């Protein structure tokens, strides 16, 4: 996609990298604990051979995945863009797999601000919108930006299309 169209330019808060890193570590931790106990059970009860192979495969993938999950937040942050104007909400993300999304304001049915414990630690909010066909979230925005964006979306989304 070239630059002739106004692709989105606004970025997330840089702190979102830390948020992602923390949540990824927690998820990985839980995953590895589960995998470890499975491997131990496999060793203890000497399950069928192929189960061992599958567990080994999952371990290899898991280690690879967790290494990637410590790099991914940086790349994701670098490429995450969003923008809002009177007519459209735009998203762009990803390098390996680029995704561009274009949502008309008139089709947005609700907008909400959410904050989990890790986001709260960094004073961030995620802003999510629902349309008739899908839902989208902008994952990490500073409080004032999030509030402003939410109000902006709510204001623009007041308009609904007339079906002639």
């Amino acid at each position: 996609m070239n630059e002739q169209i106004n692709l989105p330019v606004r970025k997330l808060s840089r702190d979102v990298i830390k948020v992602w890193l923390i949540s990824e570590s927690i998820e990985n931790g839980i995953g590895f604990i589960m995998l470890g106990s499975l491997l131990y059970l496999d060793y203890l009860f000497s399950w069928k051979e192929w189960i061992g192979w599958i567990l080994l495969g999952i371990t290899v993938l898991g280690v690879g995945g967790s290494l990637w999950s410590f790099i991914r937040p940086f790349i994701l942050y670098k490429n995450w863009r969003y923008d809002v104007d009177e007519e459209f909400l735009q998203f762009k993300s990803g390098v390996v797999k680029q995704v561009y999304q274009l949502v008309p304001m008139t089709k947005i049915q609700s907008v909400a601000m959410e904050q989990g414990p890790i986001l709260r630690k960094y004073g961030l909010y995620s802003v999510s919108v629902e349309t008739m066909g899908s839902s989208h979230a902008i994952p990490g925005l500073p409080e004032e930006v999030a509030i402003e964006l939410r109000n902006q979306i709510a204001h623009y989304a007041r308009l609904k299309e007339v079906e002639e």
Partner: protein
Amino acid sequence: MKATRYNPLLMVLKLWHLIRNTSVIFFYVFVVKSEYQSTLYSYLRIGLIVAFVFTVLYIILKWFTEKYQLEEEAIHLYKGVFQKSQRMIPYSKIQDITRHRSLFHRLFMVTSMKLETGIEGQDATVKFEVVSQKEAKEIERHLNIVADDEWMNKTLHFTPAKKDILKASITSFSFLVLIPIIASLYTKMDELFHVEEEAAGILKEVINYGWLVTILLLVLAIVSTIIGVMKTYIKYGNYEIFSDYERIYIKKGVIEESSFSIAKSKVQAIEINQSPVKRLFGLAEVKLTSAGSESEGDDGLAVNSLYPFLPVKRTYEMVSEILPSYEVIEEMNPLPKKSLLLRMVRPSWIWIIATGCLYYFKPTPLNIEEAWGLVSIILLGFILVTRFLGFLNTRYILNKNFIQYKKGILGTSLFISKRDKIIEVNVERNMMQQLLGLATIETINRGKPVKHRVMRDVPVEFAHQFYKWYMGRRNEIKVTLHNVS
């Protein structure tokens, strides 16, 4: 208009349903097991009667508490025996209307009616199970629908002639209807009389009379064909497609009648589908996507389908006749060669997993040692052929404010939507697509369920054009103020 109760025949209909649904258990407990005098059975009988009486009382009570009211802008519904509720549905939210007349309805000269709102959840439909023709007309009048007897401005676009019915029964293979019936009869007879052994004896004699067998088969074939055509006639015989300035009307059914009506402005998209057999015969089905009605009807026959066996040429004409704001372009762009390349080299997870399993278990059917390799190669070949056919059948075009795309392997499906009816678009590019200058585009339309249409491996220039094209919708939509939650 003040709030009125539903038609009293509703109670009769409900009672009839109750009797129909409980007759088997009543017959079983009171007739089949009538000589059982154990306490269990006597309690069961008393319980059944009490439950039946209570249900009947509930039906009556319910009828007394349920009301509807047609206001200027909206329909109000009141219900609840113990917990009262009131619902208001603005007419503007109603997406389409279905009327259905079963034999019961025809007997009492009434009809059932469904108004679809297209919202999520179970309250999406306003249902009138029994409503008199006069009431139905009154409801339709509020929805700006021209009544049946005011045909003046309605144009008839299609009603099947004899040859259309014949074609339909051939393409739907309904002439084979007797085969499963005979087969099931045969197995049942076999269980009872051991036909097979006796038949073997008879068969020997019959085979001696070759002409007898021929005549028998011929008679069977003729009967089967006649039944098939009749079945098709019952299903598709009285098909009528009408439209006026504002709406489209589809009526069908010989014994049970149903009709479907949708405002032209509420048509979210059009699909022209061809199954492999229909493709062979040059026929197609046109479907109108509504945000309200489910795209598949109860009997697998969608209410929103224009006649399912139209000649392909006719479907294109029909679309522009019925929906003048739509146009169908027959010449569309094929995919570039590089997308064939990508489709061929894209890893197939099914094949990888299947081959992995085959390699591990190494089954040896028919004592063939290397069967796993053979099966894996055949599977790969099959997958590649499907991908190749998929590539060949793919077409796309942007035409003014329309997007059209066609996909399919043996059958095809052509999707047409207007820009203002598309509620969201996405463009995706994975690594290979970025390397080759391709992209995947997706449109989302309202519908039940919501329609996601994906077009893979189009040139990136087209994806770019597509994105820009969608932004252009700002020039054609009209807006009003609404409050958002």
